[in-house]
């Protein structure tokens, strides 16, 4: 019987296999940031252990970093201490660090791929659930807790119980104006926030193959919101073209050997998935969330659902709680929901293509009165690229705020937060209660929907802008 992509990558990393024990897997790349690592380094120190493979480890600062006045000392002393702790730990243990102010600093899941460190067939871990992002390259990438961070630092391995495999096949082509974000939100709404639990999802089919690397990262990024630890897409020419020439991509004969291996990383025709889901791309439309978990979403053209329409009692209760928290009423058209904040950024949608898409819609238009729009590039490199293309000007001329790179309002660990009762359209990944600030209300959207929403002041798709002004170049 053939093997799936996930099984092939798993098998290639087994250090030790023994009856009745989890497999011990080798980890090719360990990404660190300031939030989930301090207690792990502490553990090493207490036990007199070192970092086994500093050459497979890299750290950056992202969760706490301010997006304004980055040349000044960080105002919040607790945030400052956490960043200083990371700097001290990296210096003590010999770990490469890209701190605030460094040209390679940024959201950890944006930094790894852009340096060419994320490659097909690798195992990639990080103390962050959105590590699934790296699966876009055909890597087996998953988030881990701090105890596991310590384990990887000390041993470069992890004992792992096997995953089950799920195929999500997206047939056909995405209609115009429908993005990777709409697709993944629709997938999560379909399988539920717990539907992927215990699985590695492989996204496949024509619509997936046609996506750019950045769009594939958006898809894999949100696998965790369906409960899956990891999402993967088989590497192909799009993947290789993205990687070639990047700083850490293989060179010369190594490149040829790597590509030869990478081409074997496809699910065999005889392989069987434990579960299969099929989606018709042509049926999709811009998608937004109305509730307080990423599975509570609907097409933008729909209305806020009636909790009574849910048959499952816990889903019904969850919908009731969500509407109460979100300040919405059943039957209200989603398009009529007014927002006060728009956030473009995060490891889900903070890459250059996302900024280009939002800027294309904002060019020559204005952010609606009373709406605050924050644009936070995923990394310093993304920011520099955007400036080179003049996108920063497009944003500021439209009335949006152009900020420095980091996680920012995705989780509000820095000063970028919603105030109680404020409502956002956000290109991030979680609409949990209070995620973007205590009492804040979040609607997850694509960068295109975010831009259209900023202009109109209520949830809107790019098509709704046609009577405001024709987008440039159309």
């Amino acid at each position, binding site marked *: 019987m053939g093997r799936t992509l996930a099984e092939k990558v798993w098998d290639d990393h087994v*250090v030790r296999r023994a009856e*009745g024990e989890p497999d011990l897997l080798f980890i090719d790349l360990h990404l660190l940031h300031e939030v989930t690592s301090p207690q792990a380094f502490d553990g090493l120190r207490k036990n007199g252990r070192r970092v086994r493979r500093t050459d497979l480890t890299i750290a950056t600062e992202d969760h706490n970093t301010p997006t304004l006045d980055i040349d000044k000392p960080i105002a919040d002393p*607790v945030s400052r201490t*956490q960043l200083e702790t990371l700097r001290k730990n990296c210096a003590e243990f010999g770990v490469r660090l890209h701190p605030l102010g460094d040209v390679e600093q940024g959201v950890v899941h944006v930094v790894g791929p852009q340096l060419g460190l994320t490659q097909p067939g690798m195992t990639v871990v990080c103390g962050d659930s959105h590590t699934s992002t790296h699966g876009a390259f055909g890597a087996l990438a998953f*988030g881990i807790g701090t105890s596991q961070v310590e384990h990887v630092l*000390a041993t470069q391995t992890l004992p792992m119980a096997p995953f089950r495999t799920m195929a999500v096949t997206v047939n056909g082509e995405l209609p115009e104006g429908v993005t990777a974000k709409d697709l993944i939100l629709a997938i999560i709404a379909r399988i539920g926030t717990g539907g992927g*639990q215990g699985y590695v999802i492989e996204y496949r089919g024509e619509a997936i193959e046609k996506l750019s690397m950045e769009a594939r990262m958006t898809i894999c990024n949100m696998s965790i919101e369906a409960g899956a630890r990891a999402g993967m897409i088989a590497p192909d020419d799009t993947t290789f073209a993205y990687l070639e020439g990047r700083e850490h991509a293989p060179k010369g004969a190594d490149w040829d050997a790597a590509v030869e291996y990478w081409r074997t990383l496809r699910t065999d025709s005889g392989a069987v998935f434990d579960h299969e889901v099929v989606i018709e791309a042509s049926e999709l439309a811009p998608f937004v969330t109305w509730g307080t978990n990423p599975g509570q979403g609907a097409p933008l053209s729909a209305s806020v659902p009636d909790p009574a329409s849910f048959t499952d009692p816990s889903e019904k*209760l*969850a919908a009731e709680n969500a509407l109460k928290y979100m300040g919405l009423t059943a039957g209200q058209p989603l398009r009529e929901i007014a927002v006060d904040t728009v956030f473009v950024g995060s490891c889900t949608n903070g890459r250059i293509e996302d900024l280009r898409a939002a800027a294309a819609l904002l060019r020559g238009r204005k952010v609606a009165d009373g709406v605050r729009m924050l644009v936070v590039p995923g990394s310093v490199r993304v920011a520099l690229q955007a400036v080179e293309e003049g996108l920063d000007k497009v944003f500021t001329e439209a009335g949006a705020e152009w900020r420095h790179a980091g996680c920012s309002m995705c989780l509000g660990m820095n000063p970028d937060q919603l105030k109680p009762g404020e409502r956002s359209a956000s290109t991030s990944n979680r609409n949990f209660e209070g995620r973007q600030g205590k009492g804040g209300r979040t609607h997850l959207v694509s960068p295109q929907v975010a831009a259209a929403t900023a202009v109109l002041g209520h949830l809107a798709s790019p098509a709704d802008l046609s009577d405001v002004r024709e987008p440039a170049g159309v």
Partner: protein
Amino acid sequence: MEAFTTHTGRAVPLRRSNVDTDQIIPAHWLKKVTRDGFEDGLFEAWRKDEEFILNRPERQGATVLVAGPDFGTGSSREHAVWALQNYGFKTVISSRFADIFRGNSLKNGLLTVVLPQRTVDALWELTEADPTVEITVDLVARKVTAPGVEADFELDENARWRLLEGLDDISITLRHEEDIAAYEAKRPSFKPRTLTV
């Protein structure tokens, strides 16, 4: 890690599904660099409501959390486990846990027990009718018992053994250091390195 064999205590019924890690411990608590002191952050937003179940006088000192399905969804923050433990919970019962949270809990000696929703419903009704009722979670026998309720639960043998013994994963793995070195010796040269050594 603290060993877990058996525990008996009063319960807190948390009738909510999809209790995500941002509810268990909000992000601003994650700036701490220690593993303790998270108890006041546990369910911080909900605890502002005096009627929230954790604030009720009859629930003080309870050590068994009985939660709705999909408990612990969201981020990988192990702080969620530490917060539950710092507050005093020894075990959490639910019909379904998010993967990363489950893994984190078992690595810290917080026993997460999966039971069918109908058993969770029965435990909710029991403790709501009488908050002094005690629930016993026995890892040796893999059994949850309470007046009128007796339910077996599953946990893979390896995880159970580590919990019963209170074993530290890193020292177990380091017994196989030779296997790691042998694997490292045959890794392909095209695999990337973060440092030039």
